[in-house]
């Protein structure tokens, strides 16, 4: 079985650039649409890069702003100013 990590975000305009950045930076990511919610699964490791999100929105982005649209997640978290990583140590 694929050992997926996942992140779920609200389906709204604030989350859309984050979702696009995740898709760009994680080729194995699978996006599942559900009413009001987008859940993104990815085998073992998923990264959100600040720079990619900034390219999408054409301005500055603070990674901690994902708290405003975050619904849920699964995986160990590593976060610094540039990257937010979810991973399983398997």
């Amino acid at each position: 079985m694929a050992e997926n990590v996942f992140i779920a975000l609200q389906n709204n305009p604030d989350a859309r650039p984050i979702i696009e950045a995740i898709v760009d930076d994680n080729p194995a990511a699978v996006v599942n649409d559900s009413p009001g919610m987008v859940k993104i699964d990815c085998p073992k490791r998923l990264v959100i890069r600040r720079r990619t999100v900034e390219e999408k929105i054409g301005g500055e982005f603070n990674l901690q702003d994902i708290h405003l649209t975050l619904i849920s997640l699964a995986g160990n978290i590593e976060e610094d100013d540039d990257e937010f990583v979810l991973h399983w140590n398997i």
Partner: protein
Amino acid sequence: MADKPRRLNLNQKYQLMTRGLDWETTYQSMDDVFPYDKYEGIKIKDWDKWQDPFRLTMDAYWKYQAEKERKLYAILDSFAQNNSQLNISDARYMNAVKIWMQGVTPLEYAAFRGYAMLGRGFRGAGARVACQFQSIDEMRHYQTQMHAFSHYNKFFNGFRQYSRIRDRAWYLSIPKSYFEDAVTAGPFELITAISFSFEYVLTNLLFMPFVSGAAYNGDMATTTFGFSAQSDESRHMTLGLEVIKFMLEQHEDNLPIVQRWLDKWFWRGYRLLGLVGTMMDYMLPKKVMSWRQAWEIYWEESGMALFNDLSRYGLRPPKYHEVATKEKYRITHEFWSTIYQFSHATALYTWIPTNEELDWFSAEYGELFDTVYRPRYEYWAELHKNGERFFQKRLPVVCNVCQIPIFHTMPDDPLMNCCLVTEYKGTKHQMCSQGCKDIFDHEPEKYCQAYIPPQQIYQGNCGGATLEAYKEWLHIKEEETGEYYGSEDHRMWEEWKAQAAGTAVASA
């Protein structure tokens, strides 16, 4: 020109704002100041190894929470101003919201109290800060949910006198006893029970498929507070995972204690979530996914990935998780069948699903549904048609641990009722499953004192020894109980829909 002052990075900021805030006490011993964080046997060598992976600090916390609240209340206000209660899929749906308010919202308040206790109880400052955030979060969830429900209270039954119902309703001892069990344990067990077993492993099942279902059923108010709460939950879940790793990294003696807590609280949480599964399967007229499918995604996939990750510490998946997986085909049907027979003694309505819904169940649950549950529903529907809506005349026997009526069946035989008995100090205690019996047998002195509502009621301690006297004591009115079709909610809903249709014709 002077250099712009360099901003602290996230890690530096976190270190500065969560460390060195406390001190080693000298007038009193640390053990006297923090008297509860050792007796459970959990050994901590270095509290500074505690890390919050989100590196959330107080300033950022207030900023994000304020922003979330602004958005939430703007939506709730707009929902109320626009009479959006008329846009839900069907008034049957409101019963899921009633269960939420009667059963889940008081848990938020209980969690607020529990985490306030933990925010004082641990001697590590990082842990205390995280628990204080969570305590404030839980109070926020309680308040936002009450605010959202206050609007529904104007239009539907079942929302009034929630605090009396919380204290007195027999069926609400299911969620209530769950939390009371947790907060009467020690601090490490409490945080393992709630932050890890409940929030990490299980609440996704409530806040993701169910809340997405609320969105699909047009309930913008519940969707909004649900997702807003869950964004806090993702922080709590992360705390829960860190707690487990922290305890296991600190000392090898902690492993068997933590494993036993995981076994216990997985099972207690799973039993409680049977109610959520029932809300999803039966109370969402428009379906997003079935309980079976949600269990496969959130437990069999995500839960197992989590326990594979944790196996490096020597942890194994919780005991009886295979039983829970076997029960995925039946637990919501057994639960609904039970609520259906007892809803005259609750502030809820129940009904037999429509034919289209029964077909959906057949597709989702297969042969077992068609051979066991569907015929039962068809039989009850026939009785109802003949004016003999079926209700039980007496309250059920409930499990001494999870307090759910003993309706569950044997793991390998969905036609055989499961009731296990432990005799302790001359009294027989009934349990619904081996999972609950193990919990009782490990701490019989705790659970033999459990307040079991049906027993108290029939001893005459709740207004009188009959169901009628009890209902009076509960202040439940006939019109807010029992069968949905023909109920006050149903009649009002039909009138509102007819009005809306009439207006549309007139303006055409």
